[in-house]
């Protein structure tokens, strides 16, 4: 009797993740209807975000926040990937256990710091440095991209380290016995062996960067403006939602749901790709 109840509760809990996922999609889709019917696919390449008179109608397009999201993510990925690979190689192949352990913990703590802290620190300490070095007014694509990179490095490095660690020592030792240098072992033995995990970690980090809100909200400038230089301020989908979602009404609100839906679907595809195609699910 108790066993049956326990089993049913456990089954119900398990199905909850399925209903949550479907529920999120359905709700976003439902509230995005008005915007979808009004703008259709034009929404994707309309640069305007202009409420009409008396909050009636207006023209809304997702082009600028979509471009902003994409560009800040690209900057972050270009900077983070080589550094994260370097850290993973350092942890698995170079450092002795006594060094690797504290460094590993430090890197993981870096990943635990809340994103709003990165935003605060970035705004008051990092933005002035970017301004002094590259010009612009401190906040903008570049600053957001760099701080975003700092945020995703630990995450990317940790997964890459784990998959590099799965390389059997026998393989590495055979290569060393043939007289290979450390770099050659990394390039020709470890990299090919853990390729799937490494690409998976990069794509997962990409998914994170796309959806990151708070750090970017402090740093990207939050203006509806298409950037022409790398230091220009612009906005991104999560930032637009964070700052303007609560005050929006009617058609603008519906357009916000539309943007949230786009972000959700894109992250869903990216994460699924990383998990199932590259990282594989270790069965059992």
């Amino acid at each position, binding site marked *: 009797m108790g066993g049956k109840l326990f089993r049913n509760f456990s089954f119900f809990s398990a199905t909850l993740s399925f209903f949550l996922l479907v*529920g999120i999609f359905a709700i976003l889709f439902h509230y995005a209807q008005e915007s979808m019917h009004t703008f259709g696919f034009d929404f994707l390449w309309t640069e305007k975000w202009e409420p009409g008179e008396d909050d009636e109608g207006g023209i809304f397009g997702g082009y600028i926040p979509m471009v902003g999201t994409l560009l800040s993510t690209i900057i972050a990925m270009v900077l983070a990937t080589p550094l994260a690979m370097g850290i993973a190689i350092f942890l698995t192949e170079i450092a002795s256990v006594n060094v690797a352990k504290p460094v590993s913990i430090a890197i993981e703590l870096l990943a635990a710091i809340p*994103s709003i802290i990165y935003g605060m620190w970035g705004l008051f300490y990092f933005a002035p440095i970017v301004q002094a070095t590259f010009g612009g007014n401190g906040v903008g694509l570049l600053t957001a991209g760099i701080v975003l990179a700092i945020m995703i490095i630990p995450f990317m490095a940790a997964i890459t380290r784990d998959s590099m660690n799965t390389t059997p020592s026998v393989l590495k030792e055979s290569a060393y016995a043939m007289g290979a*240098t450390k770099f050659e072992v990394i390039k020709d033995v470890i990299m090919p062996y853990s390729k799937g995990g490494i690409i998976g970690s990069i794509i997962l980090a990409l998914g994170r960067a796309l959806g990151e809100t708070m750090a970017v909200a402090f740093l990207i400038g939050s203006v509806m403006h298409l950037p022409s230089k790398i230091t220009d301020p612009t906005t991104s989908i999560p930032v637009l939602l964070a700052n303007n979602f*609560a005050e929006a009404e009617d058609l603008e609100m519906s357009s916000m749901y539309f943007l949230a839906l786009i972000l959700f679907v894109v992250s869903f595809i990216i994460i699924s790709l990383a998990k199932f195609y590259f990282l594989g699910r270790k069965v059992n």
Partner: protein
Amino acid sequence: MNRLLLNKIILTLSILSALIGISFLFWILATLSYKGITSIHWSTFTNDLVEGGIRNLLVGQFTMALIATLVAVPVGMMAGIYLREYGYGSKLASVIRNLSDVMMSAPSIVIGVFVYALLVDPFGGYNGWAGAVALAIMMIPIIISTTDNMLALVPTELREAGMALGGSKHKIILQIVVRAAKVGITTGVLLSFARIIGETAPLLFTSANNQFFTMDLTGQFPSLTVSIYNLATYPDEASRELAWAASFILTMIVLIINLLGRFVIRNKK
């Protein structure tokens, strides 16, 4: 190029990247500590936001995170138990496991939008319950994955021994398997708590914020993280100082819970 030289260059670059990574951690912690400690006064802890303190914000943030934990831990653990003990190997379990993994990486702002549509808009305004639910939605997939992975480490022989004694399935699960995985699951709970206590995006338009002390979850609810976001953008010096003080305290809480989680699992080994 000389292959030994190339080897040296690459290894140096790799050491350099580790140094860069660590120096960012120290840079962030150093500025936070400096700005934070110099901005903290006794009144920071005893006053509410309206009087320039964070008492109500700390209580509010912890209240929402604790309610989220009270919901997410049983639900997440039961789901993990289903995946590993009942539905093990079935098609359904593998689909659910994958969906839960995807949910774990869903953008937190989207979860905020979803909860807004579900619990804020229909109920006439921001409320603490909505904030707690948003945090719970973020936490459940993490607990599912931890439970699933920790139960996988429990040797099958333990389960068989339980069966040989004539234990019923749910008794074996509760009294043998979960007990054996207790430490790992505890660590998972602590780490996920550390993660949600620092979340801002899911709270922005669910609980929103409140300047006053309140325990009424049906109205706007005080949040430490949302306050940091608001305070940092105010031009006056006092608000900024309070934002630094709050950021420092938040980071310390997160890092301490994190280290505690690691300590628990290390002590077992």
